[in-house]
């Protein structure tokens, strides 16, 4: 079932040079220099209920812009968006009660107060009834291990602890969709893991549809069943994540006891040197399209003993680079 449908969505930013100080401001009333920037050039996509969709793209691609429009806080210039029957920016007040959001850099918590106070404020804003609120809260406390955290002033919390509480803020009113803009930015591996597990769980248990933007390819790889890649305001890829992994290609890091004969290695068919790490270690990209992996390794090894071997899928970043070049 389609839950989000986006057609020909366009957004231009007009930036005026904004003066500092009163005189400058008065001056700018009459004469202002104008700069137009096309952030979204007419994008189309749709999302099914229960999907976890990743928005991927370099800095300035338009990911946050798209997310802001979808969450009803930014007006587009043209195009249609239909989310559960709402047009986000037109039906904002009604619409936003069905969605939740975590914007990496913008906090919904109160700096000087414990998160628990903010949760209760959220309860009042969304008119959540007491029983539902307590039930949700208990569940999230357990899932995110925040029992001790939520009673300490927010300013005393680490970024990871705060982020977990931001997710509670976004989920208390049981939204059907959540929008996450760089939710793992700046977090360590363990904190990222907790957040990812949480996202996976709410997606599975409550069938929450998740739209997430991230720089972190691992986030996308680990969580999403669908990826949309944006570059310079256009969608350059929109499909299942599996399609993005070029499964016929492998990255092999191989380490020998003896010096590597690079001349010979370069001549091998279906093998490309990605990086010479030392005289003994190289990273290679191999093509398993026509040949079994063990046979390729046999050719690479050239009778020498292998000290260590690491075989993995090419990282998405390389795949994306290729897409951008097109």
């Amino acid at each position: 079932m389609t839950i989000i449908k986006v057609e020909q969505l366009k957004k231009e930013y007009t930036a005026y040079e904004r003066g500092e100080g009163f005189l400058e401001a008065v001056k700018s009333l009459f004469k202002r220099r104008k700069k137009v920037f096309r952030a979204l050039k007419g994008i189309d996509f749709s999302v099914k209920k229960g999907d976890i969709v990743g928005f991927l793209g370099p800095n300035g691609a338009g990911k946050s812009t798209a997310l802001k429009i979808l969450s009803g806080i930014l007006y587009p210039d043209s195009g249609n968006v239909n989310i559960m029957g709402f047009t986000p920016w037109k039906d904002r007040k009604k619409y936003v009660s069905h969605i939740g959001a975590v914007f990496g850099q913008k906090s919904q918590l109160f700096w000087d107060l414990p998160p628990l106070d903010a949760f209760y404020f959220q309860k009042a804003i969304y008119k959540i009834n007491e029983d539902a609120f307590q039930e949700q809260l208990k569940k999230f406390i357990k899932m995110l291990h925040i029992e001790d955290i939520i009673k300490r002033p927010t300013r005393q919390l680490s970024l990871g602890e705060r982020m977990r509480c931001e997710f509670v803020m976004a989920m208390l009113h049981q939204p059907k969709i959540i929008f996450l803009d760089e939710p793992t930015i700046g977090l360590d591996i363990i904190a990222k893991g907790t957040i990812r597990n949480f996202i996976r769980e709410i997606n599975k248990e409550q069938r929450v549809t998740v739209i997430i933007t991230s720089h972190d390819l691992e986030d996308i790889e680990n969580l999403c069943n669908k990826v949309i890649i944006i570059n310079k305001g256009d969608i350059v890829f929109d499909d299942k994540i599996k399609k993005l992994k070029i499964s016929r290609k492998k990255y092999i890091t191989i380490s020998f006891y003896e010096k590597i004969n690079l001349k010979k290695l370069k001549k091998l068919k279906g093998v490309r040197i990605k990086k010479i790490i030392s005289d003994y270690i190289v990273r290679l990209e191999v093509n398993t399209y026509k040949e079994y992996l063990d046979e390729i390794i046999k050719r690479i090894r050239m009778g020498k003993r292998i000290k260590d071997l690491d075989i993995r899928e090419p990282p998405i970043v390389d795949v994306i680079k290729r897409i951008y070049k097109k």
Partner: protein
Amino acid sequence: MRSFLKLWFKSAKLQIARRMAYRGEYFISLIAMFILELIGPLLIFIIYFNSEGFPGWTFYEVLLVQGILLTVKGFSFFSFAGIIWNSNVTLMRGEFDIVLLKPRNTLLMFICESFDAEDIAKFIGGLLITTYALSHINGITLVGIGLMIALMILGVGFYFIIALLASSFVFRFIRTFRIYEVMDIFELVGRYPKSIYPKAFGTLFTTLIPIFIIAVFPANALLGRLSIDMVFASVSIILLIFISLKIWFATIRRYASAGG
């Protein structure tokens, strides 16, 4: 509306709790704020006793004007005028998006989040001065009290207009603007009765910028000195509220199109 008031009280409670985390500092700043607010009335007394005084006004009547002004201003400042300051802050941090994310009227939501725990001192101080002045004035009628309160509410409306326009201005043009100093000027003007101003200013301050409604008119109403000016000022306030609401929402609409 009821649910808005509930939310507003909740926010007020939270903000006070926030300040109570540093209790000592909070009480000191409350007291400091109160003493600072006494400078205005004190100046008036110096003028009152060192010159002819205010023609036709007794000492306690002048005190009443000061008390009403502080009450009206104090109430406005702690309950909603925080949006001016908050416009600066949220714009700087780009956090207005969070306000738009809530399933509530944007303005009411913004007001709730802008409660100012410190300015309660002004309000309480104002109430004390007003009560003290009233206790020394004879011949007070219930009708007089009723009219005074009604005009004081419109006086709060005056500050509401200023807050909306100032907030719009901050959103539209600049991020740091010393709007509070402009408010101090209004306050200074509002301390004196109409009779001390040249005629043109007197008219201006009853119609286009109905400043007299924040103190002088409520006091006059209590004292039974009714005039048609009060009607002009009241009508003007209501019209201006309507206009400034339009401007504020248009500004926010524009903000949401420009992406901050």
